[in-house]
């Protein structure tokens, strides 16, 4: 039986010197049979050619000026730093150009954003909001949409994050409550009054607000514990400062409201990890208004992001077609398609069940396996890819496996498992390039 050969592009010298030259080629991803990286000197030719083809799109002359100036600066040296700077400036210019249009071309924006969003002027925050369906493509509608959603969140907070004492007080106040101005006796028997709707704190009735409140307390405690443990190394999230405490409060509120609005999945450990990068990006938006409403924005974006992944969190669906097991199987299949030798070694010979490592990769969207900065970069691609976050995530996971294939092939069960459960730091753009390549690989 002929063993499927490792495709040439996997063994190419591309891996020894990661380069981003291909990014400046045409919009269609190049087929893998093409020879590897063009030498770095050609970079100065590429940007002008792109500009020509895109002048129709790009009415912003500033972008061309920036690009040509950056390309001329990159021609003088060919170090990787310069390349990435110019690439960043280029992509920032492109993004700003795209975002300044009246109606945003989503496809174009996706293409630019999947190459990485530079960490300036709230670009990432705005772009993520667009892709997660929070901001519509038509810029004219932004302010009305934002106002609507933010006031909706405020209502949620008022209705949901309220304790039963408050509710009973409001119910009383709606009645004839004049005990504030009491019948000026200064001593005597206190008058008893009837309770409203049979509501008292020890009530065991199913519809009793008190009973529901107590049933929710254990979820609230769980959320509280998890939020306190989120990213303990980052002062933004953890510590005694006022900032950390208010951020934790915001995270808790979002998770509690989500749990109450979704009785089907409530809260599952790990949702706090998925929430953290979103909140970080939105809260650090330089625009003050956006930062002030970051809690509301994060809530809606979190709902949207999780909507594709909800089934992974529902325990009853674990074994079904949409559950986490089947997603892991799909990852396995993907690996088998692209690198059968590695697949066979991992699953058949060393018997490393993908559930041992892929479960955390998939349910937590890789937040536990990379540094925070890397997570933001990976999520740029995840969120902006037109295939959708679930598909892209599987490709990224597959790429993660392929990148360490030499070590995996040389290892046994224990070392492979250790390697995969604490994934070594790697060049992220390299990783995403491989993931991208997996998209066009023929079956």
């Amino acid at each position, binding site marked *: 039986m002929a063993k499927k050969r490792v495709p040439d592009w996997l063994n190419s010298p591309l891996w020894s010197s990661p380069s981003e030259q291909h990014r400046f080629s045409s919009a269609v991803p190049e087929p893998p049979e093409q020879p590897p990286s063009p030498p770095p000197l050609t970079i100065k030719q590429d940007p002008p050619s792109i500009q020509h083809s895109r002048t129709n799109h790009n009415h912003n002359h500033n972008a061309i000026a920036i690009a040509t100036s950056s390309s001329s600066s990159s021609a003088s040296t060919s170090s990787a730093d310069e390349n990435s700077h110019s690439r960043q400036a280029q992509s920032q210019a492109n993004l700003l150009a795209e975002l300044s249009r009246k109606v945003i071309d989503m496809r174009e924006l996706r293409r630019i954003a999947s190459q990485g969003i530079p960490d300036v002027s709230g670009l990432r925050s705005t772009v993520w909001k667009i892709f997660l369906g929070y901001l519509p493509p038509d810029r004219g509608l932004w302010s009305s949409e934002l106002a609507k959603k933010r006031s909706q969140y405020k209502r949620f907070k008022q209705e949901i994050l309220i304790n039963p004492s408050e509710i009973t*007080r409001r119910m009383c106040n709606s009645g004839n409550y004049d*005990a504030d101005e009491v019948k000026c006796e*200064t*001593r005597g028997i206190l*008058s*008893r*009054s*009837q309770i409203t709707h049979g509501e*008292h704190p*020890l009530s065991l009735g199913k519809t009793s607000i008190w009973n529901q409140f107590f049933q929710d307390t254990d979820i609230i405690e769980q959320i509280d514990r998890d939020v306190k443990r989120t990213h303990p190394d980052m002062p933004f999230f953890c510590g005694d400062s006022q900032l950390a405490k208010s951020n934790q409060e915001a995270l808790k509120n979002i998770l509690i409201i989500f749990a109450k609005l979704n009785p089907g999945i409530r809260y599952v450990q790990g949702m706090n990890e998925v929430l953290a990068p979103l909140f970080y990006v939105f809260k650090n938006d330089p625009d003050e208004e956006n930062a002030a409403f970051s809690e509301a924005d994060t809530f809606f974006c979190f709902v949207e992001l999780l909507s594709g992944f909800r089934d992974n969190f529902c325990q009853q669906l674990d074994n079904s077609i949409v559950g986490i097991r089947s997603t892991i199987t799909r990852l396995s299949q993907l690996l088998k398609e692209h690198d059968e030798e590695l697949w066979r070694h991992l699953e058949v010979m060393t018997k490393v069940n993908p559930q041992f490592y892929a479960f955390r990769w998939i349910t937590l969207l890789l937040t536990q396996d990379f540094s925070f900065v890397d997570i933001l970069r990976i999520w740029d691609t995840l969120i902006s890819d037109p295939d959708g976050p679930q598909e892209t995530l599987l490709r990224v996971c597959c790429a993660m496996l392929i990148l360490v294939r030499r070590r995996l092939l040389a290892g046994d069960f224990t070392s492979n498992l250790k390697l995969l459960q604490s994934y070594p730091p790697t060049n992220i753009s390299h990783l995403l390039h491989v993931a991208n390549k997996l998209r066009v690989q023929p079956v």
Partner: protein
Amino acid sequence: MVLVLALGDMHIPHRAPDIPAKFKSMLVPGKIQHIICTGNLCIKEVHDYLKTLCPDLHITRGEYDEDSRYPETKTLTIGQFKLGLCHGHQVIPWGDLDSLAMLQRQLDVDILVTGHTHQFTAYKHEGGVVINPGSATGAYSSITYDVNPSFVLMDIDALRVVVYVYELIDGEVKVDKIDFKKTSTSVPAL
């Protein structure tokens, strides 16, 4: 929103076998933050039972209590309110508002909880509020045989207290409530 359970005068096992089943079914652990007990439990088993409901338990000594280590009076602060606890057999005449007001001024508390009369009462006076949760088992008292089981649950929320009175009348649990507020001065405005 702090829930405080006030009860007492169970007189188990001498005058009553146990707290009524309907009360016990409502008193589940995890809901109540503090328990204050006026006294006359009388045995350790009742103490242990109350401890399972809530770890923060305060008891004062009644004249029939078998554990002599409970204090005669106790004061504690919950939220913005100062609560005082005393069994009440020391205050003569038993259940008299003026004498209890004297005790309240001595302890310097906003809410005084006493028992011994086995009758639920809630009085206010210039110095504060006096609450008697009655007898949780309906045991007969030194004064009367006609006693309904009762206890009190206070919901302390910032400057406002809602007192829920639970009574077992003819085998049914009846709940009433009493509201009062405290102004920012030390004297409750009622």
